[in-house]
């Protein structure tokens, strides 16, 4: 009886917790009149008008494309730079590996806002303001420590003998990484990449400060709804659903590895 009550309570909390998203999902299928109706409408005639309106916006494709290109581009580059570093530290640790890892972690602690001015001016002088390149560079650099750490913890679970055996058999470092290690740690690399994509996709600080229109991704598209005259709740909801659904799927797949990635192995 008590156990059943606790289960009921847990489910109630879980449902309340996602209710804002459910309500947003419902609102995205309402007309603007139904969306602001008081009392709130749970039963209404659904319409696809909002989604049609968003897709009809000329800019929507550009926002979505920017999100995809920036997230995937930054993630790919980050992982490519992080793999060799994590490989070396996991399988060939030296006397300085430990301090190197901790130093990398400490660079992640530098608050973005503390270096906003120089980064903005550097981008301006390099002609990179409002370009995808600027955001990709910033994301690669700010996510590199997370990627190295996460890959490092995954690589360390791979028996070292396998790597050494392959080296003794005459394989080069490149071959060892590509043909021996990669197939073994593919799940780890995949969850690292997923976490990086999520972080890039949802990032807002650099987006709002370094982009105007050309390179603006979905985060900025949604932010443009904050103008008072643009407050169409149903349309805002539809735009939001479109902006978060792809990344929710990634999040659900990678949530179990999330703790490892975001606590740098401090909680397992």
């Amino acid at each position, binding site marked *: 009886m008590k156990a059943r009550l606790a289960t009921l309570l847990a489910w109630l909390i879980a449902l309340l917790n996602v209710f804002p998203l459910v309500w947003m999902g419902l609102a995205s299928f309402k007309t603007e009149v139904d969306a602001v109706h*008081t009392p709130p409408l749970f039963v209404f005639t659904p319409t696809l008008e909002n989604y049609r309106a968003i897709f009809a916006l000329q800019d929507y494709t550009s926002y979505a494309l920017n999100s995809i290109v920036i997230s995937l581009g930054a993630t790919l580059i980050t992982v490519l730079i992080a793999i060799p570093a994590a490989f070396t530290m996991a399988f*060939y640790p030296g006397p300085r590996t430990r301090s190197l890892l901790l130093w990398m972690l400490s660079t992640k602690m530098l608050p973005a806002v503390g270096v906003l001015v120089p980064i903005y001016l550097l981008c301006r002088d390099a002609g990179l303001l409002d370009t995808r390149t600027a955001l990709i560079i910033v994301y690669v650099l700010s996510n590199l420590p997370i990627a190295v750490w996460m890959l490092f913890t995954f690589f360390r679970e791979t028996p070292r003998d396998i790597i050494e055996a392959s080296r*003794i058999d005459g394989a080069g*470092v490149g071959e060892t990484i590509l043909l021996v290690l990669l197939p073994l740690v593919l799940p780890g690399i995949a969850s690292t990449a997923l976490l990086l994509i999520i972080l890039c996709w949802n990032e807002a600080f650099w987006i709002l400060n370094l982009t105007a229109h050309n390179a603006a991704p979905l985060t900025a598209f949604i932010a443009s709804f904050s103008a008072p005259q643009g407050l169409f709740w149903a349309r805002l909801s539809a735009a939001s659903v479109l902006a978060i659904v792809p990344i929710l799927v990634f999040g659900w797949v990678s949530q179990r590895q999330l703790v490892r990635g975001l606590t740098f192995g401090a909680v397992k």
Partner: protein
Amino acid sequence: MVTPAAKRPGIATVPLLAPAVLLLLVWMIVPLAMTLWFSLERYNLLNPAVRGFAGLNNYRFLLRDPTLPSVLFTTVMLVLAVLVLTIGFGTVFAALFAREFRGRNVARLLMVTPFFVMPTVSALIWKNLFMHPVNGFFAAIARGLGLPVIDWFGTLPLTSIVLIVAWEWLPFAFLIFLTALQSLDEEQIEAARLDGAGALAIFFFIQLPHLGRAISVVVMMETIFLLAIFAEIYVTTAGGPGIATTNLPFLIYQRALLAFNVGGASAAGVIAIVLANVMAAFLVRTIARRLDV
């Protein structure tokens, strides 16, 4: 078979490490040095011709700024309030989810979901669909119950932002606590239950003490992120009304990109870096203790 160390094929570690290390080195040193330098300069982008060494004037100006106490208060309150809410609810919810129950994996997924929602979406949905004083969901509930309707962003702007940010970060705390609780020995709880301990006693005397380390990690990680809260403020209040919701990041943004005051913004940036580094030092030490290389 153990290969003697001498026969192990060596590896040139430098070229493999160099790209990551050099990039991070540049990323750490260049902007930091520039911020420090700018903070000592008189430099406004609207009038770049008048530029020169200003000594500590930017800091003096910032410290004398009558808005600074309020900005620091907002910055710290936002962090503290969200920490209390996420850790308070996070530990209780994690304890509730630590035992097996029907559909636990799905319920757990629902608990974690808000963390993957981009901050601009969370903030605008809460502000409009829920906290709007006329058409919002909360207003409808209040009216239904005969309670006074709260104009959330009008009268309680900072509280409103705290609630939104807490909703975003609860999943993070919850997930870490749940992970930590699952490493707790089942038998210990079973034994306590046989000895007649209730759920509350188990929570306070077994589960909560076990969470000590996880809580300290959550405090430190969240503090670093919460000191940098920006987007939620940008899309809801723009720091207002007045300066009621202006925190340090938002102040720096205003100084730098709205007032083009490079020197003043950099001085505030240095303060933000110092604040974050105090927390970071604790965090790095905690993680270092766990790291065996």
